[in-house]
């Protein structure tokens, strides 16, 4: 059931240990979000496994700068060519962060919902991970369905533009049909200047339309591209100004953990965003 936008003042806590990162539309920032939120959660002390399910088009490995370490992948696990532990790639920077890469050579027919569920169960119960973040492929077909099969929570990534919002709505409907109850929205690539002059949907518009709880607002930020160029998730670069994508991803991780993190002013305190702090749990 969709809740009214902003119906709860704070508490965007995600209890689900297995969380799918999805969007419907491609190119809105699923993989970047998975890498950054995964890294930030791990930095907070959780044992995190990020799993790429975009079989045939894997990218989470390069975004995280771990492409050189991939030996076995998710499909090797599914088809019994290796043990789960052999497919777990430890991150270079945060030792509680691990990646399972998607296969680049197989196609989506190699996916299986039952095997996905078993793999996630094993990660949580046998390997002792606190959290599994599942990077879903674009679309609503088997790739997405497999990614969602093992999840109990979802981060829906949306850009404030027409096709992304429409696709997000569709995805939210499909997640609800799967009885995934903890659905949280990340508004990515928000451009405060465009919002201010009325040429981009505001956060409250998107929430009003989609009717799910907000867990993050990530401003458009060139540093995201720069950091993926070198394979180093931006969320791991501490410091810098407050209203940046890196700190937005770190805030999302803290909110997943149940912390009540205020939304920073993306606008220098003038207008559009100041109301948000009150509305969505800010202080």
């Amino acid at each position, binding site marked *: *059931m*969709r809740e009214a936008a902003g119906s709860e003042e704070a508490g965007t806590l995600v209890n689900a240990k297995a969380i799918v990162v999805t969007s419907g539309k491609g190119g809105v920032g699923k993989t970047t979000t998975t890498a950054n939120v995964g890294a930030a959660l791990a930095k907070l002390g959780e044992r995190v496994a990020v799993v790429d399910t975009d079989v045939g088009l894997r990218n989470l490995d390069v975004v995280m700068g771990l492409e050189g370490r991939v030996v076995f992948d998710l499909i090797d696990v599914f088809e019994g060519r290796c043990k789960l532990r052999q497919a777990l790639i430890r991150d270079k920077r945060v030792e509680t962060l691990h990646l399972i890469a998607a296969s680049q050579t197989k196609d989506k027919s190699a996916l299986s919902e039952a095997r996905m569920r078993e793999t996630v169960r094993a990660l949580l119960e046998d390997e002792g991970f606190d959290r599994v973040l599942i990077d879903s492929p674009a679309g609503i077909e088997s790739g997405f369905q497999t990614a969602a099969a093992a999840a109990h929570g979802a981060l829906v990534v949306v850009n404030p*533009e*027409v096709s992304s*919002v*429409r696709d997000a*709505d*569709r995805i939210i*409907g499909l997640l609800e049909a799967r009885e995934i109850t903890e659905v949280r929205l990340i508004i990515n690539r928000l451009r405060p200047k465009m*919002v201010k*002059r*009325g*040429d*981009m*949907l*505001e956060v409250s*518009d998107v929430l009003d*339309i989609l*009717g799910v709880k907000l867990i993050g607002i990530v401003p458009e930020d060139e540093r995201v591209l720069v950091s993926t160029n070198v394979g180093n998730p931006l969320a791991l670069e501490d410091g810098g100004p407050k209203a940046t994508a890196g700190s937005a991803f770190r805030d999302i991780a803290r909110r997943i953990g149940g912390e009540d993190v205020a939304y920073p002013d993306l606008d220098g305190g003038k207008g559009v965003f100041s109301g948000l702090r009150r509305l969505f749990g800010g202080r």
Partner: protein
Amino acid sequence: MFGFFRRRRSKDDLKQRLKLVLSYDRARLSPGKMEQLKRELLGVVEKYFPSDGDDLNVRFEQHGDRMVLIADLPRSSHR
């Protein structure tokens, strides 16, 4: 006082368009089918209330988490 010169904010158009298209998406009905439904409803209504069906307004509304099909037909009362 700048209202006259201010162009329409494009995000207002977008929000309206999105709300409309999503109401059809959520109801799994295409806008064209909706027109067809409207014509057929009109035909049925006219059968029982001759020449009364001109103002038929059919639309979807979001009521909480449900989509509701609203057919609004103001009838003139001849007493």
